[in-house]
């Protein structure tokens, strides 16, 4: 038992570190852990390592909005937080943005518990049918997301039409980029691909803009509220959108958030940030449940767990659920503390210098894990990300880098 508690605490620490450092995704840490698994298994049991990975993964989903919002350096799951988060940052309200994502993540813990029996019972029944039409679901989701660029209202149609065309072009270019990257002989192609598209491009843009951050406000957390209607709306949206992403490959938290936003007609930044936080944590939590019920892995953390315990039983599942709840609650305190600390001090740091340092770290990590080919993917992905920023269209169209290869995989 003491080892399990230690595993949770170390997992929370690791998740805090990975959450705070942009470009370091838990998938990467999970892969590294698997690489050392033979040595680790001499020291401890597979369950202990699984608990560590679970705690790390859940904590990451709480903490990763801090660099996303304060530094504009998100990962693939927190990418959509950049725009509303950045807007609030420039108004001195970044702390508020983090707290709304935190509310979402905490609500997600309850949603995970509610969905667990549904997933265990229903998913094995519906999954074979869903896989047959998966490519259609992904294709429709892609069409909807591209078409939703600039909205569906008839005003300023010609301007919106132009933006939709660009959205389609970017989506397709990202798709070709994804196909090429996944076919290259790179060990972890998603690292340079997603870090370049979302992380590096944003950092380069921040450096170019010489963004200056104003002093940030912090107020007691009980004063940061969402009214009941907003809470219900955002929770409903996350319940509708996120379960599919827990087992459908190629569909990430970002796309789920956009689908949820359209379904619930979410326009308020606070509701959207809540939705993002909720979806990010739900997707991670339910990916472990999906591993148990249909033996399919959707996240890097779930892949790692499937290697350590190939036949996950109900006992292990209970341990995982318990870890999700405990680490989520502890992670929320850590998130509040760290975001307050960052909010009080970020205006003192020269933002562009910090962005340069982070960009250098990401580049070194990319070269170390993926070599020269990976670096090439990283650079080209960054330029495509920058193109999207300059075009002023939603960056989630860059998810074509994953969606198109996945659709083709199911089609061909």
């Amino acid at each position: 038992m003491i080892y399990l508690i230690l595993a949770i605490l170390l997992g929370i620490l690791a998740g805090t570190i990975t959450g705070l450092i942009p470009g370091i995704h838990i998938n990467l840490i999970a892969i590294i852990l698997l690489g050392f698994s033979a040595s680790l298994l001499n020291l401890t049991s597979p369950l202990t390592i699984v608990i560590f990975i679970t705690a790390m993964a859940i904590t990451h989903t709480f903490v990763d909005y801090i660099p996303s919002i304060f530094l504009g350096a998100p990962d693939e799951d927190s990418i959509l937080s950049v725009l509303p988060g950045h807007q609030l940052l420039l108004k001195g309200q970044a702390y508020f943005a983090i707290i709304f994502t935190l509310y979402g993540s905490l609500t997600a813990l309850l949603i995970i518990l509610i969905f667990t029996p549904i997933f265990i019972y229903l998913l094995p029944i519906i999954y074979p049918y869903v896989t047959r039409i998966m490519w259609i679901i992904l294709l429709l989701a892609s069409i909807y997301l591209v078409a939703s660029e600039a909205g569906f209202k008839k005003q300023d149609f010609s301007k919106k039409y132009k933006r939709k065309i660009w959205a389609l072009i970017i989506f397709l270019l990202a798709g070709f980029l994804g196909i090429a990257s996944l076919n290259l002989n790179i060990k972890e192609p998603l690292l340079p691909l997603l870090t370049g598209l979302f992380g590096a491009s944003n950092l380069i843009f921040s450096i170019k803009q010489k963004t200056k951050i104003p002093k940030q406000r912090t107020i007691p957390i009980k004063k940061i509220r969402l009214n009941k209607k907003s809470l219900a709306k955002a929770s409903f949206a996350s319940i509708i959108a996120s379960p599919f992403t827990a087992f459908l490959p190629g569909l990430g938290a970002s796309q789920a958030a956009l689908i949820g936003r359209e379904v619930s007609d979410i326009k308020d930044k606070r509701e959207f940030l809540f939705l993002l936080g909720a979806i990010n944590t739900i997707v991670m939590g339910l990916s472990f449940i999906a591993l148990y019920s249909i033996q399919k892995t959707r996240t890097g953390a779930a892949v790692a767990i499937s290697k350590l315990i190939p036949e996950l039983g109900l006992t292990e599942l209970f341990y995982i659920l318990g870890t999700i709840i405990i680490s989520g609650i502890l992670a929320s305190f850590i998130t509040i503390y760290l975001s307050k600390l960052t909010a009080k001090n970020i205006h003192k740091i020269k933002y562009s210098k910090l962005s340069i340092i982070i960009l250098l770290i990401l580049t070194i990590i990319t070269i170390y894990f993926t070599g020269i080919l990976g670096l090439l993917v990283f650079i080209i992905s960054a330029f495509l990300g920058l193109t999207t920023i300059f075009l002023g269209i939603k960056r989630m169209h860059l998810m074509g880098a994953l969606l198109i290869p996945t659709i083709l995989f199911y089609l061909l």
Partner: protein
Amino acid sequence: MKLKLNLKTTLSISLIGILLLLFLSETLAPKLINIEDINNKLLNKKTKVQGQIFNIRTFEDSDFQIISIKDSTGKIDITLDNPTNLANNQNITVIGTIKEYKQYLQIQADKIII
């Protein structure tokens, strides 16, 4: 020459870069290796093998298929997430990633060429 970061530059570099990567992904395809050369050092690396199918197991509950192939040097299991219409004695080329399952090496197929 200073690189001016604007839409034109980034779009041009992206287009050229993507074309270059597509070209490299075709020309730098993994080399064909003998099945006996597959070992733990190649774990998670992409590889290419050729062989004759001698056993096919389809798991209908999960749409999962395991195809066993052999060449003159050895045999290996190929895993597929979507069942195919392959048959015993067919000669196939498999491009995929070397994975480990319960201490056995197998190839998770990305592409099968008949």
